């Protein structure tokens, strides 16, 4: 009998609708207002790669050991180095990072012994051309410059 009344008065549907209407309240809005508001990115987020410079001297931290290139599953890092005849040490000349093939697994930054290569919180990596996704040393040191839009 109770079951029949529930069916006749559409109780099962009304119960469901009650849930829907409860969430009409503005405090349940979860929409993010990107790009007007920047989203909060976690500290450990693996985004755009960056080649760190020494904060005081401005020289690159990279010692051109090539470990990141060896650790990369996609072989997308190419490290160019030259031996300095005076100090007898390898010095970094070029550094190429193909972000179009990168899957941001973080194995390169794990492999880096001097914390020179780092995946940062920048996430706006879009580019108008395929060549634009291949980053050279200058771009890796300065970081991406996404267009800022005004609203």
């Amino acid at each position, binding site marked *: 009998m109770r079951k029949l009344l529930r069916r006749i008065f559409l109780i*099962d549907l009304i119960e469901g609708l009650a849930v829907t209407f409860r969430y009409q309240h503005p405090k349940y809005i979860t929409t993010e207002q990107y790009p007007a508001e920047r989203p909060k990115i976690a500290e450990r987020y693996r985004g755009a790669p960056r080649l760190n410079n020494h904060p005081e001297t401005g020289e690159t931290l990279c010692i051109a050991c090539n470990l990141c290139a060896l650790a990369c599953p996609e072989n997308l890092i190419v490290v160019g180095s030259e031996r300095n005849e005076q100090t007898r040490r390898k010095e970094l000349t070029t550094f190429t990072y193909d972000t179009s093939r990168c899957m941001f697994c973080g194995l390169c930054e794990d492999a880096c012994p001097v914390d020179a290569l780092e995946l940062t919180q920048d996430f706006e990596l879009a580019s108008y051309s395929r060549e634009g996704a291949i980053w050279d040393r200058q771009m890796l040191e300065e970081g991406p410059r996404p267009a800022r839009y005004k609203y």
Partner: protein
Amino acid sequence: MADSTFLDSTELVLNMGPQHPSTHGVLRVILKLDGEKVLGTECVIGYLHRGVEKIGENRTYQMFAPYVDRTDYVAAVSNGLGYCLAVEKLLNVEAPPRAQVVRVILTELNRIASHLVWLGTHCLDIGAITPLFYTFREREMIMNIYEKYCGARLTTHAFRIGGLQYELYDGFEQDCREFCDWFLPRVDEYEQLLTGNRILVARMTNVGVLNAADCKAYGVTGPMLRAAGVKWDLRKAQPYSGYEQYDFEIPTGVNGDTYDRYLVRMEEMRQSVRIIRQALDRIPDGPIMAKVPKVIKPPVGEVYVSIEAPKGELGYFIVSDGSTQPYRVRIRPPSFVNLQALDKMARGALVADVVAIIGTIDIVLGEVDR
């Protein structure tokens, strides 16, 4: 002999997919129809084939770990756990206790996330649009925990061979507890929305029935097998990563139809919350990484390790020839095996039921095609 016209023929062959929105990606099902009735189905897979197993033969053991996340991308952490356990067994090392507990927490969160995606899309397919927004709201909390823990949301690469790469962040336990407290009432809400709903019940009961004997014959595992009444869960049957220490129940169904599978998965989400709460109470101190050499060179041999992924038994079969790269990696994906039963379930059903049946198998095409 006169040419038969279109009107004469009673059988019609129809392609469903690969662009059909309810095929969850790029599954193509060729339907043989008599009016609305399905006489037979044939699955065409491979649209998302990337050769993951072959890639594994050309990568070192550590390098291959990010790729397994990309097979079942909805439950990437479970894939990572299965692969890491397999290589650890090959190397004969075991992750430290702290790493094991954290692994359990993250994989159970992942099970909830996977079931939430299933619940949202499955109900969307059969006409209930609202739950999708609610399930993705809860899933967002899990994704935020992942993002804070390991820096990625979907293809996480959270585990490493021998343990974990990242130490827990400050407030991890609090985040997980907040999620558990928030999530349990939300499951009740989903049930309020869906379980009693006459439209949903009518769309689900006695649709896609697969009994226990058929499940075993097809090798179907996971919630589909449990909905048929078989109490089989690898977390209990062959515990890994310390699952024997946790107190939880295996929900089972009776009829093995779509509605039972729905109920089983809803209950599994609650049990996962139970496991997470128990695990949070007992995170031990200690190292998070076992002693694993930098260059992993396992001894010659082969190993098969299977875990209970959200969709069923996920197995990794790895053959080592003693070098730094695996000789062969074979992945036994639950979706691929479960998809075989589609024909058995869909025969005699209506076209609209096929949509419900594909949803209830809970396939991810990245895993089916690899």
